[in-house]
């Protein structure tokens, strides 16, 4: 227990509670029902950095970016009513992608609750479906305990977003301040202790397998278990593929890494899916973009599922053995039990598939002959300029898939992308948080012309807070991914996917952000070098081929082995 029982207002208690949890950055936006907290925050400017966003959705995405690169809990502060409802998309995104967040919302005074007061919404009711936990606080004395529980719930077990809704009178009232960090809740088991029987059963399957494959998800990153993973993979000798959110857990050039899973993933892990006799899913949840037709996914394989969340086991794909618990603890136990193996012939077979993919798709994508600049080559040019060691932030759509495929990674926590919810507009605000959460690293955002315009006001946040992010706008004047589907599956009926865009140069410069634009292939590398050399934020518009498609592609609902090159 800390805090000396001195009398504080609820607002001061809230901020002192943040400090107790080690918070150094808050993303927020003031408003009527949160003014008392902002007033208190004024006295903490030396200890707490507040980033004033331009829309509350941006606050949540920025906090997500911060949390994803740093492994810490992202914190947001907004007002009641519209301020609160504007955060809902971000909360849903964070819940899907297991991102630890604490969002504090102001609420009307407790006497006005339920009266349709000005800027009142039932925010606890609204956010039930998009939070890991939420609560309303109506008394100053209850604020520290609510915040302690919020941080504990947000970061423990499978992380997620938490909302604490504080009435205005609770922000203003005075109460003695005590703070006690929470380490357990009776009704909540964040992760169970490893079960020796499950470990033994899994080890037996691994030792018997001839064509095993590990499927690496974000759970490894969330559990800080990258070294444990590598030790396990090296001993088992098995190849590993990654989910979108699991990218960067393994370096892209790791010898037994065989590529990304999923609809636009690599050829080897998809085409060979049904040839595997064992899939070891590690901290991943069999999203339908990964499995395609779940009945066909790994249909000739035994499946081991290492998972922290009991609700994920057998949800989509039946696990022959579920190894419950934190992978940080289960992976070493498993590694201890298995035989040292070498699956060289099998891995060579997989790597050969990726050479087929290179010839069919990648070469054309990275080294096109003629035509306008392609998205893949833009990604590759930027990635090479940063020696494949920058943090990649993406928006959602074609640029996301090209970036995920071609950026490349050297160290963990190097990708920030909206996977589960697929939120357009995520990228720009998330890049702000990513840079603040990893200030020593270069942050490159890839965004399309559609997604950029969904949260484009955050350029002003970047400018005001002087955030050094490099924004690479891949502009094809289309909502490219939808256009691709319309081309392939809807008889080229481009229904409302063409965009007449504003002058992005004027918008960037209007926000005080340096701007460059490139259209010709021979000028691309120079433009990227100029962006890299610039100190501070930079928007590089790359005008790309208008009707380019992302390949390979697994048609929706088809088995992943139906992956096609065109």
């Amino acid at each position, binding site marked *: 227990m800390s805090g000396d029982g001195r009398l504080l207002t609820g607002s001061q208690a809230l901020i002192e509670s943040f400090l107790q949890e080690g918070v150094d950055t808050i993303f927020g936006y003031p408003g009527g029902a949160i003014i008392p907290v902002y007033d208190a925050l004024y006295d903490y400017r030396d200890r707490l950095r507040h980033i004033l966003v331009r829309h509350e959705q941006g606050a949540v995405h920025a906090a997500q970016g911060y949390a994803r690169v740093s492994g810490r809990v992202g914190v947001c502060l907004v007002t009641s009513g519209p301020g609160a409802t504007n955060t809902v998309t971000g909360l849903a995104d964070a819940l899907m992608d297991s991102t630890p967040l604490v969002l504090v919302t102001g609420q009307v005074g407790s006497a006005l609750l339920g009266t349709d007061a000005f800027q009142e919404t039932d925010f606890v009711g609204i956010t*039930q*479906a998009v939070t890991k*936990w939420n609560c309303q606080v109506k008394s100053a004395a209850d604020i520290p305990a609510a915040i302690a529980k919020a941080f504990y719930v947000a970061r423990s077990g499978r992380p997620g977003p938490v909302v604490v809704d504080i009435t205005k009178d609770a922000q203003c009232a005075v109460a003695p301040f005590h703070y006690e960090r929470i*380490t357990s809740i009776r*009704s909540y088991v964040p992760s169970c202790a490893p079960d020796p029987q499950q470990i033994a059963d899994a080890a037996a399957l691994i030792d018997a397998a001839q064509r095993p494959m590990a499927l690496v998800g974000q759970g490894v990153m969330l559990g800080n278990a990258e070294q444990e993973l590598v030790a396990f993979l090296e001993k088992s000798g098995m190849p590993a593929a990654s989910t979108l959110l699991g990218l960067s857990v393994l370096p892209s050039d790791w010898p037994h890494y065989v590529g990304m899973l999923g609809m636009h993933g690599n050829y080897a892990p998809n085409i060979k899916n049904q040839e595997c006799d064992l899939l070891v899913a590690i901290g991943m949840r069999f999203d339908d973009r990964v499995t395609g037709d779940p009945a066909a996914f790994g249909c000739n394989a035994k499946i081991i599922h290492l998972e922290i969340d*009991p609700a994920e086991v*057998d949800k989509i794909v039946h696990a022959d053995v579920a190894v419950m618990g934190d992978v940080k603890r289960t992976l070493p136990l498993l590694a201890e039990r298995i035989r040292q193996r070498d699956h060289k012939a099998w891995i060579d077979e997989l790597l050969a598939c990726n050479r087929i993919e290179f010839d069919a798709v990648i070469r054309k994508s990275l080294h096109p002959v003629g035509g306008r600049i392609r998205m893949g080559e833009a990604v590759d040019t930027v990635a090479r300029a940063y020696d494949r060691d920058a943090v990649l932030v993406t928006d959602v759509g074609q640029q996301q898939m090209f970036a995920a495929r071609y950026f490349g990674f050297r160290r963990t926590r190097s990708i920030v992308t909206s996977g589960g919810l697929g939120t357009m507009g995520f990228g720009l605000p998330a890049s702000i948080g990513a840079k603040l959460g990893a200030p020593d690293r270069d942050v490159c955002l890839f965004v399309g012309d559609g997604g950029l315009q969904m949260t484009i006001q955050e350029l002003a946040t970047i400018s005001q807070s002087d955030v050094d992010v490099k924004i690479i706008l891949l502009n094809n004047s289309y909502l490219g991914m939808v256009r691709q589907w319309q081309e392939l599956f809807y008889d080229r009926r481009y229904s409302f996917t063409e965009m007449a865009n504003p002058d992005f140069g004027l918008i960037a410069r209007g926000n005080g952000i340096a701007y460059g634009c490139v259209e010709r292939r021979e000028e691309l590398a120079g433009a990227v070098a100029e962006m890299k050399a610039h100190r501070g934020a930079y928007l590089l518009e790359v005008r790309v081929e208008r009707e380019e498609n992302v390949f390979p592609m697994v048609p929706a609902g088809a088995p992943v082995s139906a992956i096609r090159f065109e």
Partner: protein
Amino acid sequence: MEAMEKEQEYIITVFSENKVGLLNQITTVFTCRNVNIESLTTSESAVLGIHKFTIVVRTTASKVERLARQIEKKIDVLKAFVFRPEEVVQQEIALYKVTRSHNVELLVRRYNVRVLEIDDDYIVLEKTGDKSETGELFDLLRPYGVQQFVRSGTVAIIKSRRELLNEYLRERERLEELEKREQTI
């Protein structure tokens, strides 16, 4: 595999902290998976401060297990258990407001129905039993004019000799002790 599974009745008992809004959190687990709740009752449990929900659903064996895991995922839920009807003792209470007549009074005697109120025009009856029993009486009374009918949700007691909630609570206490000891070391 799942397509072959048969839908049947399950009783899910949920034990939770007594928190505002938890009922809504639990029912949304069903609505977002398009599972209809046949009946739902809530009350205090035998353990002080712990609330009990008894939920009856018709679904398949694998779906009901997934529902229970999703319910348990709610932070304030302690545990959710799934039972088949034969594993529990269950009862419902039904009330009937019926127009008075000689035939109704005969039925009252024959079916051992409790009379709660008698007026010049109507009679209020109570029948406790399972759904088929209370439903059967409703069908018999219907020809004589049932003006109001209401049936409570199912309440259920688990037959097992093991007290699963108490086991869970003891296990939690043990683990918390272990954790505290680890921290002090």
